[in-house]
């Protein structure tokens, strides 16, 4: 137990400080020498307060939060102080100087952690009850019956229905949102004064995210637990946080209460960050002008007597994944019909498992369509032969979700962009394709010299630009973009989306834009199609779908999307609650 420092003493308004971080600096030993991840960061969290730490990847937000639990890897060197008060407010310890043994005593009882990916945070071979009781057993002798009783109690508190039976379930028997509830229950069971939640909703669908956010809010209100929330999603921050700490390059650039931050951001970086968050309704004007342009263009074409077929036409499309021997296959897409006209952008929205990626892959010929009809550039994809489809691949571009993984790490960017040109015989070797590659890099706003770099030498946004360059190398008629921006930071996402819109205008390709984020889709798409459990529940222009949603799921989806404005978000919460009540859909 170390002496207190001025910053860690009780706040002026008399509220107790749960954790006080004072001039924290963290450096990591890497192959390339020392790297400073956190530099001179000070912040305090009071009892019953939710503090959000926001920032882009690499800004040091996760490292800062992990230092509260002493969870840093052995390569880290820490200076400064992290003063943690225990639940009763009787003792205070500096986590930085604690021994391993003392750290173990603090973890779980004074501070607990909720991880990003609930499916990997739970051990698949133990029941959830056992895993929740693990913390109880680690911190004292407790009988089996007593541990189970406490586990049931805590599961009920986090909203797991029928906890008496489900305490004996294994993690795979729960849905993603329920798993996250279990993880939160495990963190809560020792009743710690502070919970550190590292991107607790990033891996979840928007509708489930809203429920988990409700639960976290209840923790604060009913248990008085302080929460340190790490997130990059400004909507989540607006929904949940009382106070926001903005980090950038290892430093705190701004700290303010949530309402002030969103209404009057001070730091230049915060303003930029808030400006780049996509909002529903932003893209409306773009879309309308684009639609007008296209209507004119197609009328022109029609007047010269050219009638163009749809680039993609799906009629009652069924895609089934074969089951194991003796088991029925899994039907990922059932009876979906839609069409993409030349030069049109169709946005495909849906939660994970709704079949949106499957449809994209079927159009690209990576997954086989099994029933109905799917015509891509007038070529029937149901039961297609790869050999006959191959020439058509030149007219289809594909942008993958993770730009880091979609480049061969051993090929330079120029070689990777030249691949389609070589494969389709437009160039003999990467060097003879270089002129065209340079043109393409220029088109996606990358310096020519970047062609000589390797994928790992580019940032995420730059890689996604290169990925666009590769997809556009053969000037395709159709571009399939599968969540192209979901691996990127908000600020980068905005620029990549802008670029996408510009390129679409310039090259005039039709596009299928797949995303889970309604706001992103709204920004780009001419029409939006909503998928739910493999079925197309709604389709129409952005204005139709977003302003006047017909299907119950679409309504819930729109209401669940947190907006980066605390006041508006509070209103939306009540709307969502009403919607849920209406559907008789208790939070599951």
């Amino acid at each position, binding site marked *: 137990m170390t002496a207190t420092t001025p910053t860690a003493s009780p706040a002026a308004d008399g509220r107790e400080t749960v954790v006080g971080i004072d001039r924290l600096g963290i450096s990591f030993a890497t*192959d390339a*020498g020392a790297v400073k991840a956190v530099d001179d960061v000070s912040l305090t969290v009071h009892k019953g307060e939710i503090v959000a730490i926001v920032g882009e990847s690499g800004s040091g937000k996760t490292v800062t939060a992990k230092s509260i639990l002493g969870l840093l890897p052995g390569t880290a060197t820490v200076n400064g102080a992290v003063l943690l008060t225990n639940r009763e407010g009787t003792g205070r310890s500096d986590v930085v100087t604690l021994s391993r043994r003392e750290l173990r005593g603090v973890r779980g009882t004074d501070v607990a952690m909720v991880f990003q990916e609930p499916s990997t945070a739970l051990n698949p071979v133990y029941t959830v009850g056992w895993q929740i009781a693990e913390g109880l057993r680690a911190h004292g002798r407790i009988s089996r019956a007593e541990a189970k009783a406490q586990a049931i109690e805590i599961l009920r508190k986090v909203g797991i229905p029928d906890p008496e039976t489900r305490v004996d379930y294994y993690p795979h028997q729960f849905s993603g949102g329920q798993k996250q509830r279990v993880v939160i229950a495990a963190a809560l069971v020792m009743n710690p004064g502070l919970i550190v939640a590292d991107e607790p909703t990033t891996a979840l669908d928007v509708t489930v995210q809203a429920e988990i956010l409700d639960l976290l809010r209840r923790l604060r209100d009913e248990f008085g637990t302080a929460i340190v929330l790490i997130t990059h999603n400004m909507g989540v921050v607006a929904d949940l946080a009382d106070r926001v700490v903005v980090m950038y390059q*290892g430093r705190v650039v701004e700290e303010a209460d949530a309402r002030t931050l969103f209404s009057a951001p001070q730091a230049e970086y915060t303003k930029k960050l808030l400006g780049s968050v996509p909002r529903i309704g932003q893209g409306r004007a773009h879309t309308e002008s684009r639609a007008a342009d296209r209507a004119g263009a197609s009328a022109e074409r029609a007047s010269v007597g050219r009638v163009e077929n749809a680039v993609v036409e799906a009629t009652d499309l069924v895609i089934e994944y074969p089951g194991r021997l003796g088991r029925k296959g899994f039907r990922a897409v059932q009876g979906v019909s839609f069409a993409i006209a030349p030069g049109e952008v169709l946005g495909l929205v849906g939660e994970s498992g709704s079949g949106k990626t499957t449809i994209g892959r079927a159009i690209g010929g990576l997954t086989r369509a099994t029933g109905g009809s799917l015509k891509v550039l007038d070529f029937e994809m149901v039961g297609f032969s790869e050999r006959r489809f191959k020439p058509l691949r030149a007219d289809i571009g594909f942008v993958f979700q993770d730009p880091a*993984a*979609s480049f061969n790490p051993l090929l330079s960017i120029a070689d990777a962009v030249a691949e389609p040109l070589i494969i389709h015989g437009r160039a003999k070797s990467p060097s003879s394709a270089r002129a065209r590659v340079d043109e393409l890099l220029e088109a996606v706003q990358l310096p020519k010299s970047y062609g000589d770099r390797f994928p790992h030498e580019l940032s995420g946004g730059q890689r996604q630009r290169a990925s666009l360059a590769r997809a556009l190398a053969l000037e395709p008629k159709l571009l399939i973009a599968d969540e192209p921006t979901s691996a990127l930071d908000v600020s980068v996402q905005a*620029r990549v989306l802008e670029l996408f819109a510009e390129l679409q205008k310039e090259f005039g390709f039709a596009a299928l834009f797949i995303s889970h984020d309604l706001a992103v889709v709204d920004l780009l798409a001419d029409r939006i199609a909503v998928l739910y459990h493999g079925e197309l529940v709604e389709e129409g222009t952005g204005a139709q779908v977003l302003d006047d949603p017909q299907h119950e799921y679409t309504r819930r989806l729109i209401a669940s999307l947190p907006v980066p404005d605390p006041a508006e978000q509070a209103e939306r919460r009540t709307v969502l609650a009403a919607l849920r009540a209406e559907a008789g859909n208790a939070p599951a």
Partner: protein
Amino acid sequence: MTDTVIASVPPVKNSLLGRLPVVKQLRQSVGLQRGMLIAGLTITGLFVLVAIFAPLIAPYGFAQLRDAQGSFGAQQPPSAAHIMGTTVGGYDVFSRVIWGAQTAVLVIVLAVVFSIIAGILLGLVSGYLGGWLDRVLVVIGDAIYAFPSLLLAIVLSIVISGGQSSLWGGILAAALSITVVFIPQYYRVIRAETIRIKAEPYVESAKMLGAPTSRIMFRHVLRNATRTLPIIFTLNASEAVLTLAGLGFLGFGIEPSAAAEWGYDLNKALSDVTSGIWWTALYPGLAIVLSVLGITLVGESLNDLADPRLRGRKRVKAKAGAVSLTAVDQTLPSDVDIREENA
């Protein structure tokens, strides 16, 4: 948030020398791991040097029984003329140990090259294409695993050399029999990597572009699948020394008149040990232990260094280092810079 052009400075690359496999690891390593690697490299280097310069180092030929002064005599204790004494057959122990290094290196190189080529090709084809070919190859690979490797090597050396014992016949027989034992290891590793890489988006992206299968296999999969090879390679090399010695010890190796071979010498020294003649067994035995130790040390430390979690690093001082430029929009060049750059 100025849009400074940090990104248009090309990333610093190490010199070509610094990026060579073993040299790179040597630079990376610190502390005990560095010590292990250096010790291993020294012993292995010495082993290879001795093999190359055997004709210069060894005072006598490997099958030499007499010189100008007459016959060496059997089981002579170490003396000025024969610093490690002579064997029961009347050979000079020192010369046989030196020449034996040459045989060992030849067999290691041949065995490892053969098994790498065969293992990689089979693993790549089997992993990428899958189907019945894959199943058959996996079963055969597992069947080979099921045999004791020395037994298999014995059978193969009989089949291949048919009891002959010329220098190259013997070396090839030993190398090939070791090869067959090792192929499944390379096959398994490359197949597993291929199956993993097959699902990587960059392979799917190549498929999307319509790249032919052979191009995907060799341009995109193969080069990415070979990362772990240097480690298996070094570990197998030491096993090859042991298998060769084992074959020689059991009498399936190379005749003393064709080449020097440590295992054979050990076999012949068996009866000497009980009668107090230590030098005939000690030196060939030491040679085997040292060569295996050297190669294993290199392999083990390469293994540790390849894994960032096992790799030791110097501890950094508090507050050390610069804040890295992870900020994404800073690493994106501004439009002005791009125009300048492209002009």
